[in-house]
């Protein structure tokens, strides 16, 4: 059983061997024996090794630096430590201290959260010029003040985009006092920025060029007029601004070039004032300002050379007019500008600022997803994002990629992706751009790009484009990432791509299956459920394909998924793991995964447990898995031994109002179990009959068909048959038999009724007190008559008198073939009967009721028809029990109805056919 398990063990124990294998896997042509000794990799030139370090992320750099003295020293080279992004790492005081010796030349730092903010002074990076912090909710005035005091060379300070709820004007004053070189200050969500703080900035920071006070509650707009040095100001999303005075004062700022007032309640008169009075202003960005949009018909995008960027204007055209002679096609304005060498410094500065405010604003707008912006997104929003992900500024790239991932999802709850938005991204070449981004070696970009690809791929056409652009192997690579966030989004992408049959093979080919299975082993108890749910979901889709399901098993997927089903506490993960196991076990005929799942220790017990979950989805998938597993005889008995009968009966009893998927699987699992008579008796004893009858009454074809199958199996046992009668099952089955749209449901209902009324039930029905016995037998008689009438009608519905008479009159095989073809129920070929069941039909051929005779012959015809999956098996059973004689008698009997005779002849013909096959 544990071939896979053992192999995994070998990997972790016998390190040396696996390494050697991995190594020759990378380089096929290595002739290691004669050359290994010759090359001394530590003798590579220093700058080559440093180049090598720059290709790696922090984890791999750390590993490389831990190999030997030479590379440790090179890994500490200051040029590798100019920029540090700690967002994906836990950063406390001890961490920061351990980095200090390498951070003496550090210039730029990104991190997240208050703990890191308190710790970074331990880096002792006194030369630090840029600080950018996310998740700043808990950062206090004290923390920010210390941060400023320890980094006097600071030129750029950015806290956001989430709110700095605990920051007040005091800290801003402290920053102004400590950091005289400050050029750029961006703060989000500060409650109150008063005049004192702003005046302190004006007084102490003479080089201040850019201010961003975004999403704040109160900002002293008059004091902002004292910041005479600034070129750029953003108050996007900030409330309570008095626009009449603000426009008055700000239009006098002598150096103001760019102003962002997006997502505010600015009026058109204030906009006009700014555009008409300011001498220096070049760009006014006012995206998503509701008041302005209502009055928009008065304002064009270009007012005497000053641009207004708004949702109702053509933003590309506006930008192109700002940078004349740059481009013919203004949609390329960003890339043209970036490619231009020796652009003057001012234009560069404007471009950088514009990219930043646009990416920031568009992301915020996408997050709020306001109504009425559909046409904006389609006409220019998507194209703007795609331009921005090509920016040279990393945080712009990231915001734009996050924006792409966000704006396509219009309903978070149900993950509804807007079809038009997804496709416009694809049409504008966005897939290739995102895939390129995903290939970058920066993990934060990888994860955002992968997330965008993941969300966009919900759309099938986009998924196809992703596959065509080589996205599958890129995602498979990312799924191997040591960064959980990256791996999670990549697994999500593979999940969406694995929907449908188109890309499953390609995912397996790219090694995606192995990567997904490894993910489960890598983070079995990860803090979040995201990565496991996505990996299991993708594996579930993949396992639906026969070949891929083999691959999943080979990669150790059975063990991994059973592990999740057994021990993961997240319902989403349980659901996907159970679904994956169900799909793995669905290929009973073509591979051995069904047996393999059952043999994995604890698998069946876990699935039985999951059928009792609080969560409907989990119950459904677990029941589905047990249904599929029950096709294997040993699994079936193991399920029963693990308490499956009780659990599944309970499930069926409680699924009256459940979704049809759950109803179908509950009935299906009971059907599967009831293949053995012992189980079927147990099901009856546990009270399974009545819920199955209820499900047989369902209008949904899949549900009542499955329930009919289960009842058919149950009815084989006389005790259950009586139960079915007593619980009112006859009318339900009669109804199915006569009016279901599904031929299979009608067939199995008829067979259930035939079992119930072929006489065996009467023997036990009459045991009991005599008075009761009489009334019982009277009511039984009524049921019997109704049942037989409908069985007859059912059988007759497959027989056309004309062809029957022709067949009766002639012995030509063609006439029989015609009848057989008309009577054949395709799906019945999947049913497999035991010897006892076949024997029962054979004895029914001698039943005194001519209707049951015809029904039995009809059933045997279905079970032996050439091409049926189990036809050979059934033919063998018939021959072994000497049924040929009985069939001949039935075919020749003078008193039997014509249907019985003809059907019996067809069965004989079928047997001859199989005989011929067998002797070949």
């Amino acid at each position, binding site marked *: 059983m544990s071939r896979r398990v053992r192999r995994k063990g070998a990997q972790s124990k016998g*390190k*040396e061997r696996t*390494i*050697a294998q*991995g*190594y020759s896997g*990378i*380089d*096929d*042509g*290595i*002739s290691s024996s004669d*050359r*290994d*000794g*010759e*090359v001394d*990799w*530590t003798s*590579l*030139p220093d*700058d*080559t090794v440093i*180049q*090598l370090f*720059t*290709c*790696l992320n*922090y*984890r*791999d*750099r*750390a*590993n*490389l*630096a*831990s*190999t*030997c*003295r030479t*590379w*440790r020293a090179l890994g500490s080279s200051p040029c590798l430590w100019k920029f540090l992004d*700690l967002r994906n*790492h*836990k*950063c406390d005081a001890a*961490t920061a201290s*351990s*980095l200090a*010796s*390498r951070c003496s030349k550090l210039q730029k730092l990104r991190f997240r959260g208050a703990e890191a903010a308190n710790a970074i002074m331990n880096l002792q990076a006194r030369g630090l010029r840029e600080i950018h912090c996310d998740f700043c909710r808990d950062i206090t005035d004290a923390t920010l003040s210390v941060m400023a005091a320890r980094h006097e060379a600071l030129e750029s300070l950015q806290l956001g985009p989430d709110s700095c709820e605990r920051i007040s004007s005091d800290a801003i004053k402290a920053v102004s006092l400590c950091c005289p070189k400050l050029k750029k200050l961006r703060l989000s969500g500060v409650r109150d920025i008063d005049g004192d703080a702003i005046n302190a900035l004006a007084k102490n920071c003479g080089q201040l060029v850019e201010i961003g006070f975004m999403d704040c509650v109160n900002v002293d707009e008059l004091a902002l007029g004292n910041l005479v040095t600034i070129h750029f100001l953003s108050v996007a999303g900030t409330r309570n601004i008095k626009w009449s005075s603000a426009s008055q004062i700000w239009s006098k700022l002598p150096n103001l070039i760019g102003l962002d007032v997006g997502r505010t309640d600015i009026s058109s008169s204030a906009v006009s004032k700014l555009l008409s009075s300011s001498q220096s202003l070049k760009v006014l960005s006012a995206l998503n300002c509701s008041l302005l949009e209502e009055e928009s018909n008065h304002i064009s995008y270009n007012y005497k050379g000053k641009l207004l960027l708004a949702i109702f204007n053509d933003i590309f055209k506006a930008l192109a007019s700002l940078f004349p002679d740059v481009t013919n096609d203004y949609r390329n304005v960003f890339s043209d500008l970036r490619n231009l060498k020796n652009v003057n410094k001012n234009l560069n500065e404007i471009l950088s600022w514009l990219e930043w405010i646009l990416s920031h604003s568009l992301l915020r707008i996408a997050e709020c997803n306001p109504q009425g912006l559909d046409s904006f997104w389609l006409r220019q929003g998507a194209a703007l994002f795609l331009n921005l992900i090509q920016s040279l500024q990393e945080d712009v790239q990231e915001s734009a990629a996050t924006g792409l991932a966000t704006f396509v999802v219009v309903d978070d709850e149900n993950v509804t992706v807007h079809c038009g938005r997804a496709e416009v991204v694809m049409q504008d070449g966005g897939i290739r751009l995102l895939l390129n981004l995903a290939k970058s070696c920066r993990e934060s970009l990888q994860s955002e790009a992968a997330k965008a690809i993941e969300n966009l791929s919900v759309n099938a056409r986009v998924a196809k484009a992703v596959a065509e652009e080589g996205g599958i192997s890129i995602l498979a690579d990312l799924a*191997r990432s*040591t960064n959980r966030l990256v791996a999670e989004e990549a697994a999500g992408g593979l999940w969406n791509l694995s929907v449908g049959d188109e890309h499953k093979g390609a995912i397996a080919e790219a090694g995606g299956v192995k990567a997904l299975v490894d993910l489960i082993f890598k983070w079995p108890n990860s803090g979040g459920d995201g990565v496991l749910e996505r990996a299991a979901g993708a594996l579930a889709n993949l396992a639906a394909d026969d070949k891929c399901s083999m691959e999943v098993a080979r990669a150790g997927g059975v063990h991994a998924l059973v592990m999740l089903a057994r021990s993961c506490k997240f319902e989403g993960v349980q659901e996907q793991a159970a679904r994956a196991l169900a799909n793995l076990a669905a290929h009973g005929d073509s591979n051995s995964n069904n047996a393999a799942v059952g043999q994995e220790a604890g698998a069946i017990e876990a699935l039985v447990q999951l059928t009792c979950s609080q969560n409907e989805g989990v119950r459904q998938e677990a029941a589905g898995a047990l249904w599929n597993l029950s096709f294997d005889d040993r699994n079936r008995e193991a399920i029963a031994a693990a308490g499956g009968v009780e659990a599944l009966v309970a499930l069926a009893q409680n699924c009256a109002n459940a979704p049809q998927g759950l109803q179908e699987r509950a009935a299906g699992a009971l059907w599967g179990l009831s293949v053995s008579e012992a189980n079927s008796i147990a099901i009856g004893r546990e009270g399974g009959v009545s819920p199955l009858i209820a499900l047989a009454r369902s209008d949904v074809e899949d549900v009542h068909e499955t329930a009919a199958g289960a009842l058919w199996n149950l009815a084989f046992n006389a005790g259950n048959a009586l139960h079915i009668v007593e619980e009112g099952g006859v009318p339900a089955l009669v109804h199915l038999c006569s009016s279901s749209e599904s031929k299979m449901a009608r067939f199995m209902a008829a067979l259930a009724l035939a079992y119930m009324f072929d006489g065996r039930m009467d023997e036990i029905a009459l045991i009991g007190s005599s008075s009761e016995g009489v009334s019982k037998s009277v009511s039984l008689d009524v049921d019997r008559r109704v049942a037989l009438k409908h069985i007859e009608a059912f059988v007759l519905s497959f027989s056309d008198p004309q062809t029957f008479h022709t067949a009766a009159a002639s012995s030509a095989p063609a006439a029989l073939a015609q009848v057989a073809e008309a009577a054949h129920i395709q799906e019945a070929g999947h049913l497999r009967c035991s010897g006892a069941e076949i024997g029962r039909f054979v004895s029914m051929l001698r039943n005194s009721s001519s209707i049951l005779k015809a029904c039995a012959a009809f059933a045997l015809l279905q079970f032996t028809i050439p091409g049926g999956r189990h036809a050979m098996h059934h033919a063998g059973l018939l021959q072994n029990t000497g049924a040929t004689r009985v069939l001949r008698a039935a075919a020749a009997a003078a008193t039997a109805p014509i249907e019985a005779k003809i059907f019996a002849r067809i069965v004989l013909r079928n047997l001859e056919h199989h005989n011929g096959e067998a002797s070949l």
Partner: protein
Amino acid sequence: MASPKVIVLRTCDGETFEVDESVVYVSETIKNMIEDGCGDGVIPLPNVSSKIFPKVIEYCKKHVSDFESLKKTSNGDEKEKDKDDDSSKKGKEAVPDVEEDAEEKARVEELKEWETTYMDIDQQVLFDLLQAANYLNIKGLLLMAAEKAASMIRGKTPEQIRETFNIKNDFTPEEYEEVRRENAWAFE
């Protein structure tokens, strides 16, 4: 076209190679030497062996033709634009645009494939290639080779990296403890 000038180069093991000037210009180092007037004699390459040099030349040849074809198309475009007046340009450009796009796509595909085959090399060759690219100052080649080496490092533990590159662990236990501490942050 005038016949291209041929440069003679001698590798460290004494073998000489004759290569078109345009091809060796891909190497900044050789280009500088030629511009400094060494182009008429034999240029010595003391850090490059005759074993690896043909591989380097293969890269240069591939990329010199890329540079040249790029130059050609962009020149041609400009000329066309000069001739055409604005009104007729739009109609004409629409068609070649699509073709160019497809052509560009095919070219990128082809180059990718070439790179994959080119980089299908053993460790000895990779090592020599890194050294040669560094000495000859061929940025693209250095990046490609470093990326290849990086792909052999990613996801491996220090011990696995040592195995891969046959590196001796020369840390004392105390040192190694220190190394472990200073790198712990990257794994959290």
